[in-house]
């Protein structure tokens, strides 16, 4: 039973990372490096929380979170894709702006408790010892996150849309010569990334710790960006990475109670793990950078 509850906790910790990382993966595969994930997640979190509290409907809350994330992404897209602004600078701006705006919007929602998302409950199946709650006792966003990863993997690999998206990311110039709407594709991918980051934020505020607190993402947006590198831009590897990092953060929470060391030491673990994992994946035989979309972060405009 302990194993089950640990696994449940790992899944919960991994889900916001998975959402954000899958969204960023899609944007990056289209050639867009959006460093504003942290800001989009925060705006998604505060919007979904506020809408859920005021409307009483978590469904509306989730939808609002995703929409809010994509509105933020739209801001990024207009600046970088239409106005040709530097992607790195704009991404940082999006994060700084998102941190400020989310705490401004969330002022009156600090300290309000929410019941958390309802969990799936199939009589019989959900009560199975061990795997019952794991497979049949999660909330809707957990299932959605895995489904999203599967969908992205399938679309990227098997569909024409996926091929077009990858073409825009690998060589925008060639894709344009073939008549593909590169800017349109990049807009779509960026907005999808924003919606997914918003869903990750919504999961944090509605399910993981059902409340709103300033800066509650605590760097998860950045870890998600690192996960895309870690997963070498492949959806299933990113999913594995998200669960690995979910495991690391649960490990540190449990270790805090056991060992007689400062709790902050364990709180460092996810950040330190990110650096270590990035180092291993960037060096060594993997050479992560070789897998990066060739036109990642490079501005493109058809009329130039």
């Amino acid at each position, binding site marked *: 039973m302990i194993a089950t509850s640990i696994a449940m906790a790992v899944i919960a910790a991994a889900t916001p990372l998975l959402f954000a990382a899958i969204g960023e993966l899609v944007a990056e595969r289209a050639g867009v490096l959006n460093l504003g994930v942290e800001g989009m997640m925060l705006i998604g979190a505060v919007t979904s929380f506020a809408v859920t509290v005021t409307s009483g409907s978590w469904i509306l809350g989730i939808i609002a979170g995703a929409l809010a994330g994509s509105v933020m992404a739209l801001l990024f897209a207009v600046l970088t894709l239409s106005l040709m602004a530097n992607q790195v600078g704009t991404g940082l701006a999006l994060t700084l*702006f998102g941190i400020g705006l989310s705490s401004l919007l969330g002022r009156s929602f600090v300290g309000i408790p929410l019941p958390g998302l309802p969990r799936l409950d199939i009589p019989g199946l959900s009560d199975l010892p061990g795997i019952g709650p794991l497979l049949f006792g999660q909330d809707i966003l957990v299932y959605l996150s895995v489904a999203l990863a599967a969908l992205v993997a399938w679309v990227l690999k098997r569909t024409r849309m996926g091929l077009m998206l990858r073409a825009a990311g690998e060589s925008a110039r060639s894709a344009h010569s073939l008549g593909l709407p590169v800017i349109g594709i990049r807009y779509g991918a960026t907005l999808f990334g924003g919606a997914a980051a918003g869903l990750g934020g919504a999961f944090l505020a509605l399910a993981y710790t059902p409340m709103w607190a300033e800066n509650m993402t605590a760097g998860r947006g950045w870890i998600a960006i690192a996960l895309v590198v870690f997963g070498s831009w492949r959806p299933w590897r990113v999913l594995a990475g998200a669960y690995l990092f979910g495991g690391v953060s649960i490990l540190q929470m449990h270790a805090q109670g056991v060992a007689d060391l400062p709790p902050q030491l364990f709180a460092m673990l996810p950040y330190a793990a990110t650096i270590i994992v990035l180092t291993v994946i960037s060096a060594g035989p993997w050479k992560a950078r070789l897998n990066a979309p060739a036109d990642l972060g490079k501005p493109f405009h058809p009329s130039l």
Partner: protein
Amino acid sequence: MRLEIEPRRSVSPVLFYATPLLAVVLTVASGYVLFLALGLDPSRTLYHFLVAPLLTGFGLAELCLKAGPLVLIATGLALGFRANVWNIGAEGQLIAGAICSGGVALAFWNESGWWILPLMTLAGALGGMAYAAIPAFLKTRFDVNEILSSLMLTYIATLILSILVFGPWRDPDGLNFPESRLFSESAQLPLLIEGTRLHPGILVALGAALLAWILSARTMTGFRLDVSGQAPEAARFAGFSRNHTIWMTLLAGGGLAGLAGCFEIAGPIGQLLPQISPGYGFTAIIVAFLGRLHPLGIIAAGFLVALSYNGGEIAQVQDQLPAAAVGVFQGMLLFYLLACDFLSRFHIRLRRAPASAEKRS
């Protein structure tokens, strides 16, 4: 009819320096709308935000006090940004500098001497450099993205500081609050003007910006940075070492951020606390961009952004403006700046007929 854009042959120098002003105007206009939306009297709040901090001598001193760390950090960051080295962990390097110089202050808390402050300053700069050396090493040796590594290190630095002030460095004679001893007289910066909190840090910041100006405008090193950023291929062809650029810019950025951390704790704070900076390391990114990565521009931008901190505080008291509004302001400023940049780099043409044949390739 359709809009078309064309790159300008060269970046328009007038627009290049005018667009930051346009961005400021747009930010203030949006601030007006924002204050209206928050149910405040916008003109009154804007007055408190932008004018009130400048009306008293004390206010001006406070402005210099806030501008100091921003200019110092942004000067270092700009060197890196020019060369396409994205150190965004200045906040962590600031904390590392504060920890090292704070360690010196606490080690000699019982002693006095003129040498304590210089030692703290040295420790602060070295601490920041050492902390920035981590992403530099990881980048040059293992090709680890410096954006992610320097940012992760910021979270770690905050936690290290927290361990220290909650644990071994907690004031043994205090009331169990998470804070260190107050530094001794010898470990605190002298005041430039009695009756204010202004310390010589601002002079160091201005000096650093001027040095950086000379470095970038008059030396080969500055030229290398620019080539390395704007034309990496050309830099490689000319034999400019990319690793050298990465090391140099990160160490410079880290050292200046560490210095800023030292001045914060040896100046207005006077001890180590769990939080020693209102995000100077991140705000300095905005300052660097707003100042066009040019040391003189950064000085102007530093004062302007410092105004948003101080004006924000006044408006908080006078108009109950939420503290978070300052962050929104600063974020908006950067957005507008990036958007306005478009004007200095491109022409916008309105065409009646659909574009004829390809004009350029």
